[in-house]
């Protein structure tokens, strides 16, 4: 099975905010693999290093040590990002552009020919139900609509790998269902999805495998069913146990 994402001893350190303080190690020798066709859940408490890992994979941050690969190409090469789609957690796009203009801009970035770009834009706007608002500037959109524009731009290049950072954050139940449907459809088409989420119920439903990190270290990695069976409880309890959560004694 092809490895789509791989990190080898990935370490990221940030400079101290003020003098005298030690450097902050966001990732400590992370080794991770995601295979083709998987829906991979990336879990961890706040500050665990999930966002830093994604930032490295997307080229926003350079690793202090170790390497990361997308499609066996080092992430330092821009071409590594040719076949990926990224949906950030906080979706902000150029407010003065319309949805159509935004998608056309990203299509140009991917060097998609004009006719093909037009076809994809029409299909995507229909998929995310923004056809009625395609000519309106994004600044007039609601949060849910902006999230859907984000999803559309992540899919404009028919990505083989989709990286989703909290994709259902801020969405109503209908919106969440829509996102789950899209993820399922991509999986059926043989594409790979990496997403981080705090909605563990959703992760349990959608993901094939998960990795749980805490304090920059990989704590556990495996299929959802195996972890649930191993710990004889649901994913949320597994998560709490792995990160070392101790319930407080009742008074």
């Amino acid at each position, binding site marked *: 099975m092809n490895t789509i994402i791989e990190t080898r001893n990935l370490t990221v350190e*940030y400079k101290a905010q003020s003098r005298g303080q030690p450097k902050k190690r966001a990732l400590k020798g992370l080794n991770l693999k995601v295979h083709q066709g998987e829906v991979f859940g990336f879990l961890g408490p706040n500050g665990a290093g999930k*966002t*830093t890992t*994604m*930032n490295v994979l*997307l*080229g*926003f*941050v*350079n690793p202090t040590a170790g390497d990361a690969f997308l499609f066996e190409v080092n992430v330092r090469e*821009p*071409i*590594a*990002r*040719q076949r*990926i789609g*990224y949906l*950030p*957690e*906080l979706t*902000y*796009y*150029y*407010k*003065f*552009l319309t949805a159509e*203009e935004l998608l056309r*801009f*990203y299509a*140009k*970035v*991917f*060097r998609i020919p004009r006719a093909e770009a037009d076809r994809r834009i029409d299909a995507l706007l229909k998929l995310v139900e923004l056809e009625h608002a395609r000519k309106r500037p994004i600044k007039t959109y609601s949060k849910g609509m902006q999230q859907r524009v*984000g999803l559309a*731009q*992540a899919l404009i*290049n028919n990505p083989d790998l989709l*990286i989703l*950072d909290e994709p259902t954050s801020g969405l109503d139940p209908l919106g969440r269902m829509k996102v789950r449907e899209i993820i399922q459809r991509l999986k059926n088409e043989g594409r790979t999805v990496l997403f981080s989420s705090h909605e563990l119920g959703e992760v349990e439903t959608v993901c094939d495998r998960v990795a749980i990190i805490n304090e920059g270290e990989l704590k556990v990695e495996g299929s959802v069913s195996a972890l649930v069976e191993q710990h004889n409880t649901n994913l949320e309890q597994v998560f709490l146990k792995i990160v070392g959560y101790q319930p407080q004694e009742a008074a």
Partner: protein
Amino acid sequence: MNIVFAIAGVVIKELYRRKDFYVLFVMTAVITLAMGSVRFFNDPKIALYLKDLCLLLIWISALVIAIATTARQIPAEREARTIFPLLAKPVTRWQVILGKFLGCWAACGIALVVFYLFFGLVSASREQAWHATIFLQGMWLQWSMLAIVIALCLLGSVVFAAPSSNATICFVIVGGILVLGRHLHKLAMQQPEPLGSIVTTIYFLIPHLEWFDVKDFIVYNNDSLRFADCALASLYAGFYTTFLLVATWIVFRRKPLNT
């Protein structure tokens, strides 16, 4: 280059969808037309002061457009987080810088064409003559100067986090160079050491933006500049701009961008 042009296109759209350009153009036009309607000693043929004023307003407006537009490009993208979906695509940071530069420069070029067309109409209405060569040379040299200013401002935008501080510093530097640039070596001679050496070093290092200010030639209807001089000045602008853009890339490529 497709990616660069695509990014540049977004910058141009931003300029004409924001109101800055229209406000500045209307202000220039209103002030010029108001001054033009004044009759000094009942003489309708007086033209130089109007040309002088109009050109000065064009220079100020063009600098405001250039610096204000450029100063907010990268900081605003970081603040609005639009840089992340962009850099998550197969786009290098150099392409982002070049795209932003070309977009700002092209936007300023479009603004200059509109301003100079207006200036040409005002000038022709008073003088019934049009000195096309020096006019075009003046516009081209001003556009070349704006390339240096935009590149400088882009460098500032990756060094300073806030667009406002970057814009202020750029205005001060550009204004200082335009006013003092050609006189710095005279100032240096009047200073005690080591200040004199420092000022002399600055004199030789700064981009001499005052070379591109040929308003006097246009106002006084002087003969056009030699094409060789124009070409050399353009080459100078090209080298300086490239230098500043490369410096911007060197600083920007090392900056971690955290979502």
